[in-house]
């Protein structure tokens, strides 16, 4: 019984997550990936340099 119940719970969560993704219109979903060495950057606008206190 408990196995069936937990399976239903799992399937329910899976279905909920699937519906949430569909309704949000997002086609590329989040995946956990650590790839800091591949992170590239581009110059940003609107900043200044100074003797501020960080934080």
């Amino acid at each position: 019984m408990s196995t069936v119940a937990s399976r239903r719970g799992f399937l329910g969560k899976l279905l909920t997550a699937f519906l949430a993704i569909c309704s949000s219109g997002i086609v590329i979903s989040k995946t956990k990936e650590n790839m800091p060495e591949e992170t590239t950057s581009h110059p940003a606008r609107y900043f200044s340099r100074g003797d501020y206190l960080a934080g």
Partner: protein
Amino acid sequence: MSPLPPIVECRLCPRRCKLAENERGDCRVRVNLDGELRTLVYGKPCALHIDPVEKKPLFHFLPGSSIFSIATAGCNLHCLFCQNWNISQSDPEETRNESFPPEHIVDAALKNRCPSIAYTYTEPVIYYEYTYDTCLQAHQKGLRNVLVTAWYIEEEPATEMAKVVDAANVDIKSFDDRFYRELCGGSLRPVLRATEILSKAGVLVEITNLIVPTKNDDPGVICELCAWVHDHLGAETPIHFTRFHPDYRLTGIPSTPAKTLLMAAETAHIQGLHHVYVGNLPEGGNEDTFCSKCGKKLIARRGFRVNENRLVAGRCPDCLQPLHGIWK
């Protein structure tokens, strides 16, 4: 002894994050590298999709058209009820990103016969440079640009962005600054100021107000919001009241009752707003557009679908009154 790299202050949004070397802003995507502010999400969308423009929601902009929609990771607000929290509250390393420079976005929109591009899902303010450059290239190819935004941004970048954007749906989360502070981690005043900048620059502005039961459903606050929209953006400004559903960190509150949304719509009408819409209601019926002069129905919608569009060259066919919006 070499001097320490300077602290950088980001002046894009009202947070004004002051960043030490290698430190990222509150938005997660802007970083101080060697004393330069850099963005980590330029050309790296985590979401690409083709949506009906009605989904944004934009009801006075090319009705029935498809809109090429993009987003990157990150956001400069942290709404407890965010419906796209899995990408908005993530670092760019935590999302699966495509390599899509501005010219590829424009090509993809053209290839898919989308007359416009939406910068949406998370917050276009935080991928500002990517949005701006894509907007420029889109205009060169005859495409229009749409922001779907909470518009928590400083005046100077807002003014610059307004020059390259055609329409925006601004999500004013409440007219109560406490709501912004406690549920979103922001503040109201900069949003209002920046929204006026858009409107004065000639950008078509539609307003969305998502109503969360017990949090921002006070009739007096809704009345203040509607009065502000009327007085500062104009009576023709479309306003959408949308239904909250439990999500992210606000799962203990039920969905917004229909009567609350209808109360808000009635309030907007009383305040003199002509185009008032209620979204996310299963029964529908508050998504049609009417002529502000003769009252005849001009555009009939159901959900994200346009069932009928009677506009002729942007005018009511019965009394010839122009309808506020972008129609071709």
